[in-house]
């Protein structure tokens, strides 16, 4: 153990050399910007960085990529909090409380709670990563198709906690999300389903254009409506927005809730270790857990720090989790780590179980890059904070077209095909219609993330052994299914108690 820390300390010192620090800083800045721009994901940013890394030495390239990963995961919260559009899929839950907090006139607090939660969650996750790569990776291997199926069902049960005021509408939204995943080429045999014989539907509805469409368009349209009503060209009407906050106070807001922080971090790390869904699910799961354990669940969604902390701590800890499987087995946990793995392969480094012993300088270098990029991320956001904060005072008539253009570019750049842009448009309209009808958007996103994974793992399990009881008799799987039932019951109980206290259903929350 001691050797590990000596080696790690040495690597951190190396990382502070100009040679590595510069690419790391460059990566972190690129990540924060890419993460903050709606429609531009961390994956795209990292692919843009990839060609630059060919000419560098492997660790310089990997440092730049680690910087992008960490910066991007935190950067997504900026847009989520300031304009209510998740900058990356892993910041969806940050919009739930971050944006209301901005509307309440505290954009500075929303940003900084997010940033510090990201920092602390990331740092805690890093400790898990370094101290227990082996055991964590062993957990991941225990997950066969039965366990994955039950895990994703458990994740889906969180729809019950996200339904908003009407259970029916929430379930409807979740169901729509699941149905969307059925359209297109099926994930097992490649058989076209519900495509109406068109090429357009064969590719299905890719996750990202749907996400951007649903959130960005719906959000921007309701902003436009407010403009027309004469709420003024300036975004945050009502109380004068407070941009400056005491960092000590914000830090205390997070550190005074140690259980929330640690629990959210754990969820993030675990979801990161298990390949398949990544940060896009971790943040929603952590948010839901925070709400369930809270003494005042009804306040979630009104702009309280707990919601932001849960989401941001978990999605940054998720980064650490994804790095675990690369370190332990050389298996990428998500699209971002797949590109990192590709970069290593091109440099002739075979990541795998012997990676740490064969290439200690690179392996510990990645750990070090991860740890050093966290403070760099905070500094980057602090340095740019004047700029971020100005975003909310930009007249909406200028901001909205810019954001829309970015969304279209992002949707196109994902797969380099125009069809994705049409998907964006289609779901933009759908999202707006849903907001008008008071149907919450979050359950749809959860259904969309989980649908394919639930289907694929169900088919795998049954192809392996048709006995359905195995879902219950496998201990991890059975436990997760029991937790799913518990999760739904608890959510329904909280929902009912909340409505009884309120005496009647609260006025519709138009955002989620």
């Amino acid at each position: 153990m001691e050797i590990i820390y000596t080696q790690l300390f040495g690597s951190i010192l190396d990382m502070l050399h100009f040679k590595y620090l510069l690419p790391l800083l460059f990566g972190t800045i690129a990540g924060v910007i890419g993460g903050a721009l709606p429609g531009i994901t961390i994956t795209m940013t990292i692919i843009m960085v990839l060609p630059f890394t060919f000419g560098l030495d492997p660790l310089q390239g990997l440092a730049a990529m680690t910087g992008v990963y960490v910066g991007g995961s935190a950067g997504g919260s900026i847009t989520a909090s300031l304009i209510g559009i998740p900058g990356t899929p892993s910041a969806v839950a940050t919009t739930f409380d971050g944006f209301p907090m901005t509307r309440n006139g505290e954009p500075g607090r929303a940003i900084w709670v997010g940033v510090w939660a990201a920092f602390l969650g990331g740092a805690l996750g890093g400790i898990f990563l370094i101290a227990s790569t082996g055991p964590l990776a062993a957990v991941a291997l225990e997950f066969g198709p039965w366990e994955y199926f039950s895990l994703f069902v458990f994740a889906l049960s969180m729809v019950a906690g996200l339904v908003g005021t009407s259970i029916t509408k929430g379930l409807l939204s979740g169901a729509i999300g699941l149905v969307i995943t059925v359209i297109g080429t099926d994930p097992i045999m490649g058989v076209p389903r519900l495509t109406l014989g068109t090429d357009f539907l064969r590719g299905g509805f890719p996750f990202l254009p749907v996400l951007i469409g649903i959130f960005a368009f719906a959000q921007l349209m309701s902003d436009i409506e407010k403009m027309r009503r004469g709420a003024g060209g300036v975004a945050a009407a009502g109380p004068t927005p407070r941009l400056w906050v005491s960092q000590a106070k914000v830090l205390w807001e997070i550190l005074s809730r140690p259980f929330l922080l640690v629990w959210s971090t754990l969820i993030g790390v675990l979801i990161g270790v298990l390949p398949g869904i990544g940060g896009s699910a971790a943040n929603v799961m952590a948010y839901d857990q925070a709400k369930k354990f809270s003494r005042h669940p009804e306040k979630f969604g009104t702009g309280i720090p707990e919601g932001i902390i849960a989401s941001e701590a978990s999605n940054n800890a998720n980064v650490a989790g994804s790095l675990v499987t690369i370190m332990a087995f050389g298996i990428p946990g998500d699209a971002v780590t797949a590109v990192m793995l590709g970069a290593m392969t091109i440099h002739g480094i075979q990541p795998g179980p012997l990676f740490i012993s064969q290439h200690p300088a690179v392996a510990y270098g990645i750990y070090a890059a991860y740890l050093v990029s966290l403070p760099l991320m905070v500094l980057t956001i602090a340095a740019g904070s004047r700029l971020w904060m100005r975003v909310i005072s930009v007249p909406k008539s200028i901001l909205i077209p810019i954001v829309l253009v970015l969304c279209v570019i992002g949707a196109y750049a994902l797969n380099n095909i125009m069809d994705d842009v049409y998907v964006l448009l289609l779901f933009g309209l759908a999202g707006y219609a849903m907001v008008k009808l008071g149907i919450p958007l979050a359950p749809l996103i959860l259904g969309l993330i989980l649908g394919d994974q639930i289907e694929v793992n169900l088919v795998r399990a049954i192809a392996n052994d048709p006995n359905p009881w195995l879902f219950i008799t496998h201990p991890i799987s059975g436990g997760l299914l029991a937790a799913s039932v518990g999760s739904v019951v608890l959510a329904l109980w909280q929902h009912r108690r909340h409505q009884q206290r309120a005496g009647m259903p609260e006025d519709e929350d138009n955002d989620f």
Partner: protein
Amino acid sequence: MPSLHTKETKTMKRIIAAVSCALVAASASAAYPDRPVKLIVPWAAGGDTDNIFRPFAPLLQKHLAQTVVIANVGGASGTVGEREAKNAPADGYTVFAPHDFVHSAYYTGVTDVRYTDFDPICMISSTPSVITASPKTPWKAWAQLQADAKARPGQITVGASLGSTSQFSMALVEKAAGIKFKYIPYDGLAPRMNAILGGHIDLTDSNLTQKSKVQAGLLKFIAIMSEKRNPEIPDVPTMKELGFNVVYAVSRGLMVPKGTPEAVQATLATACVAAAKEPAFANSMTLQGTEVRFLDRKGYAQFLKDNDALYKEISDELGLTKKR
């Protein structure tokens, strides 16, 4: 006025003629390529195919003397990118980077696009398949695996992308050895690796990129489906040595939409030869456990034709062929 009018018309005619002459001359003389070339890789960045074309693209760019941009167009087992490439203008500015899925995807009905919708430019690489077993299986060598498979037909699980190359390779083994496996759908090498390390599947088709896991004792290479043993893994026997005529590799190359002008195809082919012969390319392929296997336009066309017939045969035998 009429005279003036005629004069004007004449002048106009002359101008038009001159301009169109210039345009024709320009289009004829503007040597291809005069703008960046898009290379469609039909899978996500970081995958096996992407990793092969990433180091290749800069070399192609060098010999083409024009920027080559990789566009990852993923989705539906590579067929979204395939269709995108087919529908692109046949002007040489869109090049398609496929592998053998073009045959299997056609016969299993995933797509209507066929390899004949493209003109072959060159084949660049060949990645031999290796039968890979989970550490939780008892077999030490092929003989034990075969005996076990004979004793328990249809019970040994194989993780594969159904209807794609990783199933076809194992199907060839089944056929040659007279055994039966049970296929579990795992699309992509990464999820297959996760499942096989945990013992959730017994076997899978992998390649030399997984060598380090074997060295660490986390995986077992049973046999390689190449003509000769690979110097990187000298202890692993070939299927041929074991007495089965199974040779299988995933081949990758370049194609352009059908109807691309002959001169353009020739230019691309020349650049491709030069790029594939660069030591840097050979080096990066070795690092990835892949062999450089170059075939020119004619050779690649014949290869595709033979390969297509082979895939049709396996697809029919597996009952995967979709009636059209």
